[in-house]
């Protein structure tokens, strides 16, 4: 047996090869694919789902490896098996986060699988924010990275608004139409090399306004948060269409965005330096990047608040704050402290007590930051109603749904108890309490904003720096 081949993506291939990208978040990845195309790559975001994908994963990846690896690699191999492009004109792209989780190994597992199936000649590109492995002809210039970052943020915006519309839409399909229109608007904007934040924020306003047009009925629905390992949390393939299931049960889904993961990754480098005194230079750079990203997220939050009555996501500062008393920020493998923070945030900021915590069966980091913290969360927030669900190619849907149904039964019970408790008081009174709550929320927001104003000013310069850097090369 020979050592494994590693085919790199060369400069020439940029002209000739089509890059296949596995899907995690349909909306986001569409925009990101667009960004790559914009930079001269030929892109195909994979849309093959179903049993074929799972079977290929089972065949080609060690079955004890995490489920997302099986799905992502299965999806790629399934795509190659049914590829209508010549196979010598195809490359694959996989994301690599780096860090102590075994997920950093996906690219290697993919190469192993490719070799095993006789696709060893197909180049594999590693796309990494923090660059774990370099691929010759594939580069991520700063301008492109910046676009990708904006792309993720727009994706989050669309997803957030969609989640708040779909359960309440009066005409079925209207929310989806808004998504399609928004993605189209985004695609129109993401077609030039250099993007200014002004343009992006204008786009965001357009998107928000587009969603404002969706005709929604006023109705109390049970809100359910989805958190977990990044792939099974977002990918319908990974979580057996969890979102669809929750919608069919009459819930509103609240799902923290992907942008937070970027913030989390960059913040970790910064914090690693604080903890251990290592990597000073890298940390200094990441501190800047993180600062810049936080600013953009805050901007988006403002835009939502100014232009709609949709509930905006949290500022990253409050996300960080959420870990206090629950988990150390040193837990940085996998979703790490971010997962814990998201649960706390859902309960305390969004007032969503019902949470599905998704993870691949046997996920290592989630032992600690998922199941490991549930006890403390319940202790400090007795109203929390969390169900942990394991996903796996062999875990049956009926088992998963039954557990989620138990969580929903509890949610309904709590909701009815609350209604009963407030049933005696008049409606008006209820309204005013609600308003009070909202006001309090607003207050706390504006406080955060105030603290932010300065930093946003400071941000400007870093943004300009980045844009300047982009212009220069």
């Amino acid at each position: 047996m020979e050592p494994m081949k590693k085919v790199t993506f060369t400069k020439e291939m940029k002209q000739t090869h089509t890059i296949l990208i596995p899907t995690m978040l349909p909306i986001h990845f569409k925009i990101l694919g667009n960004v790559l195309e914009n930079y001269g790559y030929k892109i195909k975001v994979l849309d093959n789902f179903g049993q074929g994908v799972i079977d290929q994963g089972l065949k080609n990846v060690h079955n004890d490896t995490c489920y997302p690896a099986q799905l992502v690699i299965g999806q790629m191999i399934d795509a190659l098996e049914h590829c209508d492009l010549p196979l010598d004109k195809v490359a694959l792209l996989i994301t690599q986060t780096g860090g102590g989780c075994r997920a950093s190994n996906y690219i290697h597992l993919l190469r192993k699988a490719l070799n095993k199936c006789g696709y060893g000649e197909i180049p594999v590109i590693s796309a990494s924010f923090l660059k774990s492995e370099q691929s010759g002809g594939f580069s991520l210039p700063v301008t492109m990275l910046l676009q990708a970052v904006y792309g993720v943020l727009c994706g989050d915006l669309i997803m957030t608004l969609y989640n708040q519309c779909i359960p309440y839409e009066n005409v079925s399909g209207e929310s989806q139409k808004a998504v399609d229109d928004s993605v189209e608007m985004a695609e129109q904007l993401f077609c030039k090399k250099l993007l200014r934040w002004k343009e992006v924020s204008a786009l965001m306003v357009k998107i928000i306004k587009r969603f404002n047009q969706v005709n929604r009925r006023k109705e109390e629905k049970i809100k359910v948060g989805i958190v977990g390992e990044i792939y099974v949390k977002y990918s319908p393939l990974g979580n057996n269409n969890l979102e669809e299931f929750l919608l069919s049960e009459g819930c509103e889904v609240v799902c923290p965005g992907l942008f937070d993961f970027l913030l989390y990754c960059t913040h970790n480098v910064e914090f690693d330096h604080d903890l251990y005194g290592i990597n000073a230079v890298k940390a200094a750079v990441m501190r800047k990047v993180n600062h810049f990203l936080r600013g953009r997220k805050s901007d988006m939050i403002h835009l939502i608040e100014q232009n709609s009555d949709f509930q905006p996501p949290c500022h990253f500062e409050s996300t960080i704050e959420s870990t206090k008393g629950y988990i150390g920020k040193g837990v940085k493998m996998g979703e790490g402290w971010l997962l814990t923070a998201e649960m706390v945030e859902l309960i305390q900021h969004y007032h969503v007590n019902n949470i599905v915590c998704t993870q691949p069966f046997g996920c290592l980091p989630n032992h600690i930051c998922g199941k490991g913290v549930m006890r403390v969360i319940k202790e400090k927030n007795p109203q929390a109603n969390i169900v942990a669900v394991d996903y796996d190619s062999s875990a049956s849907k009926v088992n998963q749904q039954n557990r989620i149904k138990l969580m929903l039964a509890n949610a309904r019970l709590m909701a009815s108890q609350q209604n009963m408790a407030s049933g005696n008081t008049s409606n008006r009174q209820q309204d005013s309490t609600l308003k009070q709550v909202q006001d309090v929320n607003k207050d706390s927001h504006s406080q955060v904003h105030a603290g932010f104003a300065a930093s946003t000013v400071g941000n400007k310069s870093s943004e300009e720096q980045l844009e300047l850097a982009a212009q220069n090369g």
Partner: protein
Amino acid sequence: MKNIGIDIGSTTVKLVVMEGEKILYRIYQRHLSQVRQATLQALEGAKQFLKGDKFRAAISGSAGLGLAEDAGIDFVQEVFATYKTVMEYEPDTDAVIELGGEDAKIIFLSGGLEERMNGSCAGGTGAFIDQMATLLSITPEEMDELSLKHERIYPIASRCGVFAKTDIQPLLNQGARKEDVSASIFQAVVDQTVTGLSQGRKIEGKVLFLGGPLFFFKGLQERFAETLKLSKKNAVFPSWAQYSVAIGTAIFTRGLDREYSYEEFTDILQNASSRSKSTHYLKPLFANEQEHDEFVNRHSKANVPWKDIADYSGDAYLGIDCGSTTTKLVLMSDSFETLYRYYSSSQGNPVGIVRQQLQKIYEACGDRVKIRYAVATGYGEELIQHAFHLDDGIVETIAHFKAAQHFDPKVEFILDIGGQDIKCFKIKNDAIDSIMLNEACSSGCGSFIETFAKSMGYTAEEFARLGLFSKYPVDLGSRCTVFMNSSVKQAQKDGASVEDISAGLSMSVVKNVLYKVIRARSSDELGEHIVVQGGTFLNDAVLRSFEQEIGHNVTRPDIAGLMGAYGAAIYGRGIYKASGEEKLSSMLSAKELENFVHESKPIVCQGCTNHCNLTINTFAGGERYISGNRCEKPLGLGKEKQLPDLYRFKLDQIRNLSEDCRRLREEKPMRRGTVGLPLGLNMYENLFFWVEFFHSLQMNVVISDLSSRALYAKGQYSVPSDTACYPAKLMHGHIENLLDQGVDTIFYPCMSYNFDEQKGDNHFNCPVVAYYPELLASNVEKLKSVRYLYPYLNLSAQKTFPKKVWEALRDYYPDLTLKEVKQASENAYNRYHAQRMEIKEKGKEALEFAREHGLKTIILCGRPYHVDPEINHGINQLITSLGLVVVSEDCVSDLVEPVRPNVLNQWTYHARLYNAAKYVTEHDDCELVQLVSFGCGIDAITTDEVSEILARGDRLYTQLKIDEINNLGAVKIRLRSLVGAVRERDAQKKKQ
């Protein structure tokens, strides 16, 4: 107004008709996966109470979900329904435990309502008890009765049904009493429920026990009450226990508007069409009759000739294969024909069966047939060999190889699926090239199909035959039997027929073998000549699925189930012929068999801290055979010279250090008090570092005791994630141990990074090792009562370390100066490196010793904490008892150029493995055995890579998966197979 509650669980339908608070009618029956019919039947019985009246109704239960959806009838989640019942009948309850067919649930009522269900990897419930009863060849009711007469309880892995099974089987084979095994099975169910579901919350006060199993089994009730230390008053087993969900469902309907008449309701159920089918279907096994005929024809040609024993006179050879669930005998003529064949379930008493069969054989032999040599193989090899004075015993893998090779001399691949084991061998140059065996957690083999068939009311053969002509086989996944059970549930929900489930199960077994055990992609990897055998392949549905899945025809001998025994006989013939002398087998004579008696008694060995569960078998004439031991000690053979064993050496070092700390505490109490260190995970290797560090800072150290089952049990209640690895879960016990010793400060730092040994791209700890201190902080309530220090520290950053650790400690020790800490750190680093050197030196010595004495060395690869005897279960001792030297991976990982593996090499401990593998490929007198803790996600990556490195050097790879399981039967077979294969290969090499 009447209210109907229907609870459709995984195996049974429960229906109650209520009027107000009165229960008018109730029924409990098995549905044998015919969910709709069974429900209608149950309704039929209630007809007299419902006729002419309107009523309200709802459905609950995991198998009822689909029916409720299809029929548009209200559905109630079952735990929620239970809650309703309890609130109405026993509102002062503190906690509820409910066991169903396949689910376990707990409801905490007082102190904050909380409801929990078992996770997906925890199947030991009603169906599990049924399966275990089948294993013991008794009915569940008999098992219950027996259990009440138990004398002792064996430790049986409690996490998952499959695990428990691997523990129970060898106990039976060793002759443990059924009374004790029955009680132990119930205890396992109890342990699993308590740990899996309580997750840190104590179950106390008035506890209500509900569900079928807890209603029917007194033995189980007793175990629960005893384990939870409940008084008679507080352990409540109500008369309506098995109807709790149905009753709650009926209560729930009070709030509904919709009303039905009897006719309306049955109509709706009858006509409900399956709307949402989420089950996935596979290709049928045979497209048409013709294909089936061709298949039958082809396989009928593969047979071993019979010779009528009545017509034969001359030499004969006997092979006895005492497997995990079945006992097989073959008497073979001098020209390899079979004279006598026997295949049957062991029924928990293999010795009795063998005795009976031997008597029959002697009778048939008369004076004409001379049995020259008799060989035993299989799980019960040693027991049978000793009981009947057989001439020899061989490890079953070699027996199977011998048989297959005889059948097809060009055989390249052998696959054997038995009742419990899956064994695959690749053959190259007439020798075993690699052996793959299934792990405890993938044992979806024969006995599973059999028990499953029985649970649905069929024999295994009938069940298999049904599957052959299924039109829509259901896809049931391939992970493990527990998952399959729930997939079957899903399929039932979607209305799959028995035929479809049977075919689906066959395919699952095959997929499990191919993708989990062999890890093959296509038939090319298996070669042209494939022989399949083992009782499971007598099932045509499995055979066909296998051929279909690999797209290749294979050979199945007609004696597929007897290949082990046949191989043993062939082996015996070889030995006999080679010896050249004429003699009869040493086996007990017909007369001796008449007077044969066998008794077995379990005891606990007090020879060392392993405390093995021994079974003492006594035969006629007071002869004894002891099984269950890991070492030679209980056999009373006196002290043999121990072979070098690095695992023992490391453990002794730790014991000594622990003792030193204790002495120092007594003799010289230091001014800054005492710090407790939990002895587990990375602390194993860093222990010397921290002890030196704290001693230098004038602090005494308490190291928690070595792990034991009891220590684990003590901390088990606070484990939040039951799928984490056993080494991690043990940490809870170590913390309890420290607290019991009265320490006021516990130090256990979080470490993303490990020491950088310059072997890989990075030097992380695995996520569990790195952050387990965090998990303990949030889950062990008692830690709030002491000072629990778990700062984030990085030992590889030696420069910044002193300052960082000083910052972490100075709040608690205000007089601590940075200068002091700097000095202490330096001492600690020195001590750490010195100790590492010492180990490596010792490793070198061991290797030299082996070479001097011409012994093989096993490089036993794992993590530092695999030194823990509760984690490795004495595997190192077992290896030395086989005459092999044991050296740990860290001793050789610096003796080669660092490997560049094909995977990201970023964990310090794991990087050592790749180097150790490389070292083995460069040294013919070393073999590698890798210890893998169940649930270690990172080892999913390392095992593949290590085996590839070995394969590149044409070396065998052996993996031992370890967990709570305390039984080394399978491990022993694996190790002996390795030794046997290596010996054969060396012999081949010499020939060439």
